[in-house]
């Protein structure tokens, strides 16, 4: 009891609040750009046109919603797993402040057109410097807490957390290297095919170190807590960990198949992408086997539903991903709408479902109360999953159709369809995707309403530890 009372959850509260706000912004912008693709007159040049808004969408989603909630949950989880309060609560509060500054600067500067243009690393160099400071503070605080830990054994979640801290730092520093011209303009330090190869070494491993290892850390922590049974195999978790972080780094060039990047780099990427199925599915099986004898909880416990669907989408994602890394299939679907279908199954189905579970789990505990409405949480769940499936499935069909049309040839070897003929066929699917996005947005509003009601019914935290809230 005494240890628990000394945990500091202020930073977690702040990060949760802000990550949800940025998540809402990301989805609003996502819905807006979906509609812009159908009704180009919705572009409001110069600041709110598609080319500038799309990076705002991805940055708000990955960094605002994704990283923001990881920071919240890493602080929470690390304290519980080390049985040790956070190393410096003051630094964590400063970090929250800096985090929001970075996200606001990112949104404003991208709308102004200040961009390095590399996907998921668009921010100009002064903001990059703030990001580095932010990350160092975060990494230091988490790592020092681990160093001071009262629990000698480090649970597998902490492994994934440590890998995330190192991985993101290396990737971001190398890829963002630039030659500044002014405060608002710089040029990449690398040129042409080198730049592309560095970029996708980064871009792909951002998927590894931001959209895979952090949700896994949270998944491994939450599943036993929520189901009340331990994880099936700690050992399997550890073997999967080492092979995952080893293999991921070889596969960046699967984003560059058929480009001028050297063939052997592409071939390695293709091979390692297929090998990646093993460590990815080790985590999926670890989750499934832990559920042995517990499947009834899918009905009784809404949080289990979020986690099991989440890990299932992760499993599907890590089968679909390797298939896209095969040259022949890539030749077909690369550059088409198939890829946003893949992206959003991972982003909405895997990452966001696990994060929702995390928020639902944490909020009642740090505010010492009960969730306002499990019914609304269920409504949120089904609407979110429906919106996501409408999005992904319509994009897969669209991608296949577009690929078929763009590759169709006549007897004399000429092309059967012009580019515009293929584009015209995309509109119905783009309408459907926008519809899926609106459903998803509604689900998110329900989620936010539920969380707000919960927080308002709770205590502000630090005073008394109520029996119900203690876990």
């Amino acid at each position: 009891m005494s240890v628990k009372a000394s945990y500091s959850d202020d930073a977690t509260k702040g990060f949760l609040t802000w990550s949800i706000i940025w998540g809402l912004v990301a989805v609003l912008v996502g819905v807006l750009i979906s509609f812009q693709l159908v009704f180009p007159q919705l572009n409001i040049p110069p600041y709110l046109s598609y080319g500038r808004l799309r990076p705002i969408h991805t940055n708000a989603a990955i960094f605002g919603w994704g990283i923001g909630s990881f920071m919240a949950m890493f602080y929470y989880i690390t304290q519980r797993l080390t049985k040790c309060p956070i190393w410096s609560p003051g630094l964590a509060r400063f970090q929250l402040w800096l985090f929001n500054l970075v996200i606001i600067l990112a949104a404003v500067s991208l709308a102004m057109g200040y961009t390095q243009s590399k996907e998921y690393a668009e921010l100009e160099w002064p903001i990059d410097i703030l990001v580095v400071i932010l990350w160092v503070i975060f990494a230091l605080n988490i790592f020092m807490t681990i160093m001071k830990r009262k629990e000698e054994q480090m649970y597998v979640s902490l492994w994934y957390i440590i890998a995330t801290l190192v991985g993101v730092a290396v990737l971001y520093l190398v890829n963002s290297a630039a030659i500044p011209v002014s405060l608002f303009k710089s040029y990449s330090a690398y040129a042409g095919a080198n730049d592309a190869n560095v970029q996708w070494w980064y871009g792909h491993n951002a998927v590894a170190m931001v959209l895979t290892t952090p949700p896994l850390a949270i998944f491994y922590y939450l599943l036993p807590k929520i189901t009340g049974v331990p994880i099936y195999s700690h050992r399997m978790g550890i073997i999967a960990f080492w092979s995952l972080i080893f293999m991921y780094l070889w596969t960046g060039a699967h984003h560059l198949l058929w480009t001028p990047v050297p063939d052997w780099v592409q071939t390695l990427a293709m091979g390692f992408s297929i090998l990646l199925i093993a460590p990815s599915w080790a985590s999926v099986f670890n989750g499934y086997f832990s559920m042995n004898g517990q499947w009834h909880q899918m009905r009784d416990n809404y949080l289990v539903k979020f986690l099991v669907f989440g890990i299932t989408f992760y499993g599907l994602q890590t089968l679909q991903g390797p298939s896209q890394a095969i040259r022949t299939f890539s030749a077909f679907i690369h550059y088409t709408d198939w890829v946003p279908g893949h992206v959003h199954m991972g982003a909405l189905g895997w990452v966001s479902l696990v994060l929702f579970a995390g928020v639902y789990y944490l909020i009642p505990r740090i505010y010492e109360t009960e969730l306002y409405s499990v019914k609304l949480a269920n409504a949120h769940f089904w609407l979110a999953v429906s919106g996501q499936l409408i999005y992904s499935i319509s994009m897969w069909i669209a991608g296949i159709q577009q690929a078929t049309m763009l590759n169709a040839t006549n007897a004399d070897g000429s092309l059967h369809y012009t580019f515009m003929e293929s584009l015209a066929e995309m509109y119905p699917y783009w309408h459907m995707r926008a519809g899926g996005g609106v459903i998803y947005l509604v689900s998110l509003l329900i989620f936010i309403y539920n969380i707000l009601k919960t927080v308002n019914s709770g205590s502000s935290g630090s005073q008394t530890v109520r029996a119900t809230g203690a876990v």
Partner: protein
Amino acid sequence: MLDLLEKKPVILLLLSALVIMIGTAVTMIAPFTWINDPSLKIAGVKPYTPLQLEGRDIYVREGCNNCHTQTVRPLVADVARYAPGSTDGYSKVGEFVYDQPHLWGSRRTGPDLARIGGKYPDAWHYKHMADPQSMVPKSNMPGYAFMRQPLDSSLTERKMKALGFPYTPAELEAVKGKTEMDALVAYLQKLGNDIPWRKAAAAAPLVGELKNPYTDNASALNEGKLLVSQNCAQCHGEELKGGIGPALTSLARPEGEIFSTIFKGRGGMPAFGDTLGREKVWKIVTYLGSRTGKK
């Protein structure tokens, strides 16, 4: 062994950094040596001029790369569509040595632009950039009419220096007073134009018999008309009375020559052979023939 690590955070940290660096060393660091191989240089590829560089920066600023790629893959359909008339017009390492950053992109919401230089006359780009739907009604590309504003040239020289590109005072002077659109079009017209693919494509003779299979075939007229309104009206006018391209209402040349112009392109007239194919081009020729002389 692995279990031991569970109690040693510092070693775990260092070891995971090491594990990450193995794949990094092989697939990110080593390829520099292959890509920088001097034998991959292409002689004709020159650095950007001050005006082209400003245009490229506008392309980056507007995030055109969120919808457009700049790499033609060595695949039949890619080459036919984006490097028409050639067989090996796909992208090579040497084309990109001055691209900081690269602009290959990851999504083709719009067509690839690696070979856009010289495909259209400047006038087409000015009209298209300002209002894409006026040229291509079903396009979902945003309009950029605001780019008619003056170009900010205060950083041009520093930019050229930062990249180590050669420039003359006259070139710097030439940037002054230009609009953003001027710069962007200058950049677009450079893309893919300093490599030999187009010349090779234009020099290749048309093989096969140049005989219209649809002569006196009235059923080809309707399709020909539709094809013309979809592909040609943007430049030759809805009534074919001229616009960016000349009027096509009084063509007095043999059908084979007209076919060849449409098939292979000429001057500011794009090639349609690979994107439409012989049959459709002949239908267009038949339709144009039926229009000749009509007002």
